[in-house]
């Protein structure tokens, strides 16, 4: 039996899960969420939307095909901790380049394995997302230490942490998009680039004017971490962009930012939507698609000039909106998948079509 270092997860409501530490062993605090995707742990690990969070995989065997350098969704993982039932020590896949534990170690991510992840999921489902500490000081932290840790935790700067420092360009002969990177996944960039788009990618807190200066055909707002209301300056930027009359499109956090800029509201879901099996219905056609999702917040209270385009079949929540008169269109789910089903790839084409239509009209 291999020497293991005991560790435990302490939740805000006092529930504790004892297991073994792995990866980079250093105490960590984060918002504990679960994701139900059975494949794609690497994409999950590197999805900036998880910044500040401790991610629990509901599928028990994680790391089976290792880690490769191709499937990264960002330059590094931003999550605060990674919880699995069992990590794989002997991964195998033709693209496997390193194993999970080494990857976490290199990126200084604390891992916890060997806990009853289903029990944890059920706690989160019943009580909602809450903060948690992963510590190797098992049974050793005092209540006041725990309280202090929870109290000092904040995820309000997650976008700042995940965005890029400087603007960059990806050349293409097609539609020119000004992309606001609030922690955007490479999957989105790839899907747009694949369609020939020219991409001017800006840091999250770039002023609208600067973005418009590159004379884009449209603005694209991608996914990102945290509560959209934590970044009011970006919401203001989006408002300005909308006022410019240029098409504004968004995915996930981008969708929430657009909605807020249009006067709608957002609220926190009890335990979020994380996984690759969420059915959403296209309200225009009635067709249902299986989508990849990863969000804690959801758009609500639509204003009169905004209408829903997609809803979630399970809980009826809004999954997409459009402006009734302006070329503004966004979705909550992830058409780029990675990880997850590719059924809504067509959304990218729909985005581009909206832009084309505006261009032709002009």
């Amino acid at each position, binding site marked *: 039996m291999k020497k293991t270092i005991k560790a435990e997860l302490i939740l805000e409501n006092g529930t504790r899960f004892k297991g073994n530490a792995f990866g980079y062993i250093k105490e960590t605090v984060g918002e504990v969420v679960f994701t*139900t995707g059975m*494949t794609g742990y690497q994409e999950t690990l590197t999805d900036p939307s998880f910044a500040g969070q401790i991610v629990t995989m509901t599928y*028990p065997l994680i790391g089976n*095909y290792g880690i490769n350098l191709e499937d990264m969704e960002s330059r590094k993982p931003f999550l605060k901790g990674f919880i699995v039932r*069992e990590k794989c020590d002997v991964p*195998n*896949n033709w693209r496997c380049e390193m194993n999970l534990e080494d990857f976490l170690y290199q990126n200084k991510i604390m891992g916890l394995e060997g806990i009853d992840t289903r029990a944890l999921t*059920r706690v989160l489902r019943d009580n909602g997302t809450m903060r948690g500490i992963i510590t190797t000081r098992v049974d050793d932290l005092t209540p006041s230490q725990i309280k202090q840790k929870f109290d000092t935790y904040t995820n309000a700067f997650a976008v700042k942490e995940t965005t890029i420092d400087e603007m960059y360009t990806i050349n293409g002969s097609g539609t020119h998009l000004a992309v606001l990177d609030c922690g955007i996944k490479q999957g989105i960039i790839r899907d747009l680039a694949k369609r020939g788009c020219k991409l001017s990618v800006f840091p999250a807190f770039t002023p609208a004017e600067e973005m418009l200066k590159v004379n884009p055909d449209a603005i694209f707002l991608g996914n990102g971490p945290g509560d959209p209301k934590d970044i009011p300056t970006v919401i203001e930027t989006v408002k300005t962009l909308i006022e410019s009359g240029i098409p504004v499109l968004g995915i996930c956090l981008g969708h929430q930012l657009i909605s807020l800029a249009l006067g709608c509201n957002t609220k926190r879901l009890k335990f979020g939507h994380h996984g690759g099996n969420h059915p959403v219905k296209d309200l225009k056609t009635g067709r249902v698609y*299986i989508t990849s999702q990863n969000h804690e917040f959801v758009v609500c209270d639509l204003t009169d000039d905004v209408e829903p385009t997609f809803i979630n079949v399970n809980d009826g929540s809004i999954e997409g909106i459009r402006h009734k008169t302006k070329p503004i269109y966004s979705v909550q789910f992830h058409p780029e998948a990675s990880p*997850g089903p590719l059924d809504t790839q067509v959304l990218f084409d729909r985005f581009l079509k909206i832009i084309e239509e505006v261009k032709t009209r002009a």
Partner: protein
Amino acid sequence: MPKDNSIKKVLVIGSGPIVIGQAAEFDYSGTQACQSIKEEGIEVVLINSNPATIMTDLGMAHYTYIEPLTIDFIEKVIAKERPDSIIAGMGGQTGLNLSCELYDAGILDKYNVRVIGTSIESIKEGEDRDSFKQLMEKTNQPIVESDIVTDVEAAVKFADKIGYPVIVRPAYTLGGTGGGIAANEAELREICGQGLHLSRVGQVLIEKSIAGWKEIEFEVMRDGAGNCITVCSMENVDPVGVHTGDSIVVAPAQTLSDREYQMLRSAAINIINSIEIKGGCNVQFALDPNSYNYAVIEINPRVSRSSALASKATGYPIAKVAAKIALGYNLDEIKNAVTGKTFACFEPTIDYVVLKFPRWPFDKFFGAKRTLGTKMMATGEIMSIGKSFESALLKGVRSLEIGQYGLERKSAKEFSLEELKQKVVKPDDERLFYLAEMLRRGYKVEKVCQITGMDLFFISKIAKIVEMEENLKNMNLDELTEDKLRFVKEFGFSDKAISKFIGCIPPDIYKLRKEWNIMPVFKMVDTCAGEFEAVTPYYYSSYDMENEVVVSDKKKVMVIGSGPIRIGQGIEFDYCSVHSIMALRKAGIETIIVNNNPETVSTDFDTADKLYFEPLTEEDVLNIVETEKPDGVILQFGGQTAIKLANFFDEMNIPILGTLPKHIDEAEDREKFDAVLEKLGIARPKGKGVWTLKDGIETAERLGYPVLVRPSYVLGGQGMEITHNEAELSLYLTEAFEKDSKNPVLIDRYLSGREIEVDAICDGTDVFIPGIMEHLERAGVHSGDSISIYPPQHISDEMREKILDVTKKLSIALNVIGMVNIQFIEFKGELNIIEVNPRSSRTVPYITKVTGVPVIDVATRVMLGEKLADLGYYTGIGKEPDVVALKVPVFSTEKLPQVEVSLGPEMRSTGEVLGVGRTLEEALYKGFIAAGMTVPKTGSTILATVSSKDHEEFVEVAKRCVALGCNFIATKGTARVLNENGIDCKVVKKISEGVPNIIDTIRSGVIDLTVDIPKKANDVDSDGFKIRRTAVESDMTLITAMDTFKAMVDVMEKKIDQDKLEIFDINRDLGHN
């Protein structure tokens, strides 16, 4: 779209008898479909020839026809019931093929029956080899490149194009003989030349070899609006080359990255979209382990064995949803019955590992060629659920009931490393244990992967189990600390395995576990990995933190299921388990079922109040008992699997409903049973256990030949045989003692009489026999393999009284409460007992349907303490109907190379069909047709080879055949006898006499019926054995018992006009309501 209200009456076609490749999974899906349609207020007309199914139960469909599955009989049903719609995909390949035939023959048009669900055009697009190829091209999906060639040069040219290695498959040779893999041109020339020679039509298929690729399956659903979902992915642990039915399968796929997974998932969805599936579909892929290259192997546009597995693995009821789609619903309009909140339009996500293991019949067919390939050989399967691959694998191994609790197998110990290496390269049923043994001896993990093609992920897990086993071996009980024990239990080892490795007994481990509170918890299968609250209590065990079971304080009873389907323990026992649950539920009792067979109705999530998907071992079942604390446990319906647990339950003071363990023992223990019979003055064939050849010969002399011989303890060797003289007996005994000198051989006097069977219900006072069954074949043929006739045709009233009397005396004496099955032989006017089984038997579903007595319901209530008299039954025999209903066995031996096919004392059939008629001959006619046999007509040619002891009887029957205008071809001896008796007969050469010989004659297709009545079975080198094998492999009707032959001639003489034959709705027309 909501329900299509123009659908009022739907025809459902079942899959017929259980055969290898088509087992209980279609009873499960068919039953679900019937229920799903019925609950929409639509009438269901059902046709299925298999009486041992839940779907053919009284009241399951509105109109139920247990009639032969041919388009003629289905047309009769359509003409009588006039359904407006037919659903094609619920009865396996049989149902699908029949639906296509009905369509092609214009019968559906003629009666205005429309196909709902997946259309015939779509089915054909997916099934037909050429259109499949075109479809794949159209949808840009790669397939395995192949071409049919008729000469070697063309083969070489094609191979150059697709690249080596290539697989050579000769057309129309059986068991894949003459094929092979060619790595280069020289090899191809050799193999192809040989293959062309062996192929009857001079064709071989040249196919690109994808040996070693991963085999991945997806279960996909699509509705009429085009919404698509995948229910589950599955990965074969064995790479491409082993039939998926013979492979260990894991769900979900374990070794695929998201990119690979989504690539295949998207491909599956594109395919079903392009052929417009409306319902479920299975798509099989081969995936190169070293690139993104893949190929679509095949698609099955219907429910399947894999869809049953996927349903059980995820909790998603594929058949039920497919039926709703056929009725017009869209996926987002169908509720997810497991959560009650979400909809069927989502993809299940699971938080455990599921393994499926095939169950092979090689324990019964010891002579069989066990090499696994592209033709399925498993009769059944088990499924195991664990939190890790290792724990699921260990659960799976102990669910198989092959005496294994870990990976160390005795048979593997005997081989050298070199021998083991040879063995694992060519997969057989023991490969898992052989490769584990190699790892145990230090053979490199990577090398095992290389020579088996199995993924390192799997092999390293197996290596981990082996390592743990070795660690345990180096430990003794004192060293087993709390932490260590907890670790090995979490890992997945059973107490039995642990105790075996460290050298103690299971109770030692159990005691420690109790002391340290190391007990499993139960987790729920809920389709959603805990994301939503689930309402269907479907559980598996795990050594973990949180127990999710909510134990009620209601009165509850646990029913132990029968595990995997195998020869001798088939779907009949699942039927009984399910009915017992229904009876208990009706009585207001909470029901708990424990079983591990994913193909069955019993493991459907809403059959019982609670389902535990667990191995049926002492420890695993005890865990559930200790959690649930049921008021009683029922063992009588789970076959030997459940009965085996009786003594253990007794020791653990677990309340057993029905016959008590000590009384079960009295019936099962030969000596105790003899004493009971002695006391009651009931006759049984005299017999004795012998230890030496001399003793044996003397005993046989005393008993008088022929004698029935069998080892008291079967050790991978000889089975039961009838020997007719000293020479045969000596040979048998010599061989038997050579193989195993430590156990006696049992010798019984063989009574060549009429075999009679009853299933009775006893409440301690009264004994009720729903019906007496008479066997068509005389004693010597296993009761499961003979044709059962009800009501009996040749049993006198006096004998009936005697049967009732003996049944009553014996049931009372054995303190039977509930079911008992008794087999008799009527010999020269005397009633002899040959066997008593203090449990439900395989004839119960049949007798329930043909007598109309709800046998299991009554038996269950009796076990709960009710009296027969209060239920309206008294000591006596049930009223007999004015029709004849018989059960005809169905065999799958053609799929098992080198297995004996003649009828004998060992059971070989896998399934059964029913034949119902106004007369015995009508019933037989239907039974033969339903069993796939051809009844000869005027001008038919019969090939005969009959052992000399049967010549006299045979001649008489042959004369009748000649009178009916049949011709004979026979081997020398048989021909001479026929000629001597004035019957014209062509002589055919024996195999040793050169070509063309009898084998060529059979293969040539000129024969309509082969009659081979052997003297001795299991002699693989004999001509007879080869003749019988050739006949079944050529899909020809073969008769191996004189009585069956006589019955067939009886039927021929009646010149039955099939067009005029009545069909019977078992709900109405059997006169019992």
